[in-house]
């Protein structure tokens, strides 16, 4: 049986097709835009073609992400918190803590021994410690997002970024650059500051294994910065950007078989 998950995130839309026997059979990603319902529909159709699946064969569609309620082709919606937990459990069945850092959200989800969400924390109004923050840094330093990890690796001494606010941190970075601090040290400092922010959300409640999901997990070096703050190993989920969509598709399969 085939089901689909659509994760309408703040920066990208993700679609996953899931076969209850074969696992994830196709996936697609597209940048988020103004016409997100149309973008999601097109991406869904493209992913169907890629997976060689007919629309009628998809038994159930679950939408998640901040734009979930706008996805008219979805049969139902589930929050990204529950979807990330389901997606992570698929790849790492004993996962106990999920750290998801997306475009504008960062969240920590604790999974109980029954495999269900036990508790969660989520950032509120501010974008500190999210992908948007890293994008701002890359653009300010004139480098590509994917090069940040390699840069941080060359840092000899991470700069101290004390501001948690993306706007004030930008001012701080401008000041650091002006005083001659090397860009690689700034990048390492920014990664450490995001990790500290997440560390604050985790509090004393870190339970291993810790699995890292969301688009920011694809930025090299972030998992090392997190591991340093949390004091334990941090595993990157397979295809971390797809975790929410995959979780949605798995939950859709569960609903279809009810």
């Amino acid at each position: 049986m085939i089901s689909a998950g659509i994760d309408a995130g703040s920066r990208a839309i993700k679609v996953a097709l899931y076969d209850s026997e074969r696992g994830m059979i196709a996936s697609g990603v597209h940048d988020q835009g103004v016409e997100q319902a149309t973008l999601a529909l097109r991406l869904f159709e493209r992913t169907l073609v890629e997976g060689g699946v007919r629309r009628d064969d998809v038994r159930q569609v679950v939408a998640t992400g901040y734009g979930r309620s706008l996805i008219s082709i979805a049969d139902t919606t589930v929050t990204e918190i529950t979807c990330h937990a389901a997606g992570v459990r698929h790849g790492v069945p004993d996962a106990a803590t999920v750290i998801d850092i997306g475009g504008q959200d960062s969240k920590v989800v604790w999974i109980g021994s029954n495999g269900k969400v036990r508790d969660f924390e989520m950032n509120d109004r501010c974008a500190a410690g999210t992908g948007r923050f890293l994008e701002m840094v890359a653009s300010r330093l004139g480098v590509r997002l994917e090069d940040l990890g390699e840069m941080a690796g060359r840092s000899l001494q991470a700069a101290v970024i004390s501001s948690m606010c993306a706007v004030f941190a930008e001012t701080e970075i401008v000041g650091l650059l002006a005083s001659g601090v090397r860009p690689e040290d700034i990048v390492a400092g920014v990664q450490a500051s995001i990790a500290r922010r997440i560390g604050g959300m985790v509090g004393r409640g870190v339970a291993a294994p810790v699995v890292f999901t969301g688009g920011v997990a694809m930025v090299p070096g972030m998992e090392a910065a997190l591991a340093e703050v949390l004091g334990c190993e941090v595993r990157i989920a397979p295809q971390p950007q797809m975790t929410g969509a995959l979780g949605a598709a798995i939950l859709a399969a569960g609903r279809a078989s009810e």
Partner: protein
Amino acid sequence: MLQHCHAYAVQAKRDGRKVVGILCEFTPRELILAAGGVPVCLCGGSAKTIPAAEQELPANLCPLIKSTYGYCVQKSNPFLEMADLVIAETTCDGKKKMYELMGRTRPVHVLELPQKVEDADAAEHWYREIQKLKGELERRFGVEITECKLREAIRLMNRERGLRRQLAEVMKCDSPAITGRELITLKSSISGIPADLEQYEKAIARYGTAANGVDDTRLASGAAKRSHARVLLTGVPMAHGAERVLEIIEQNGGLVVAMENCTGLKPILEDVDETAADPLRAIAEKYLHLPCSVMTPNRRRMESIRGLAGEYRVDCVIELIWQACLTYDVEARRVREVVEQELGLPYLRIETDYSPSDSARIATRVEALFETVRGRRA
């Protein structure tokens, strides 16, 4: 019921009665009623008045304080404009200092609230504050607050609290006839209006009967389903106009069956002893027991949360914190422990202000909480 309030206050003024603004549940309405006054709540719940307040107040201050003060600056709260006296109190620092600014243009009397509530001195000090308020009202309004009038006011307020309690208890059944949002709409801003008491009685008769299983097609629109997660809402008060989080909760699969806050059950759980030899002392005693987060330690609030969670058979507890409300925010740590460790229930803390910019994010967190609740049931 809010609709009566304005007309009632206007008529009362015409009849020569005094309108007295109150900003806190520690202020004993009995004394105001016994002085022939009309006690009206002035707490601001509108985002619209905040920019005016921020010209004088810091931005990083609780929105309730800013909104209240914004009304004062803009002269846009008709009740404040009618008020012959505003009774303030030293609860949190933000309010206390705001009252000084308000006092430049309005007559303000400040009650000094002791905060080590379990000390014997606290009760004595608070009693003297209540005595001073009695003197102030008598002098200012040229009246005498007799023992007879005081006892009459106590009976009236006990009756009002009793009716509001009964109405709140409608939410105890499996599928109540009304939602938490509808319940809060039934609450009046002025105490002691006979028409309001009648409305409470009618509402109890109507929704209370429905709750007992009688099919009534005239039921309120929001009649809840059994599938809803039953929520105990705790934390800061939701002044009229600031019910956004309550609405988000009920639009996303929850039903707020009990509100342990100052706009809900907190001030009406205890009555004033009608048989006490000294009615003034009895009033002081009841009000000092209010489990506000400014009290230290604030054991009564934890007892109240434990009790309400059981009585209303809640599935989870949501705590609302207004941005920069330090006492509720810090106390949230203790509430979380009680809820998660003692009651074994999921707990969610929502910190926000009056601007709707984070509504989608709050909805996600609330929905995820209810998914967790359903996951536990399954």
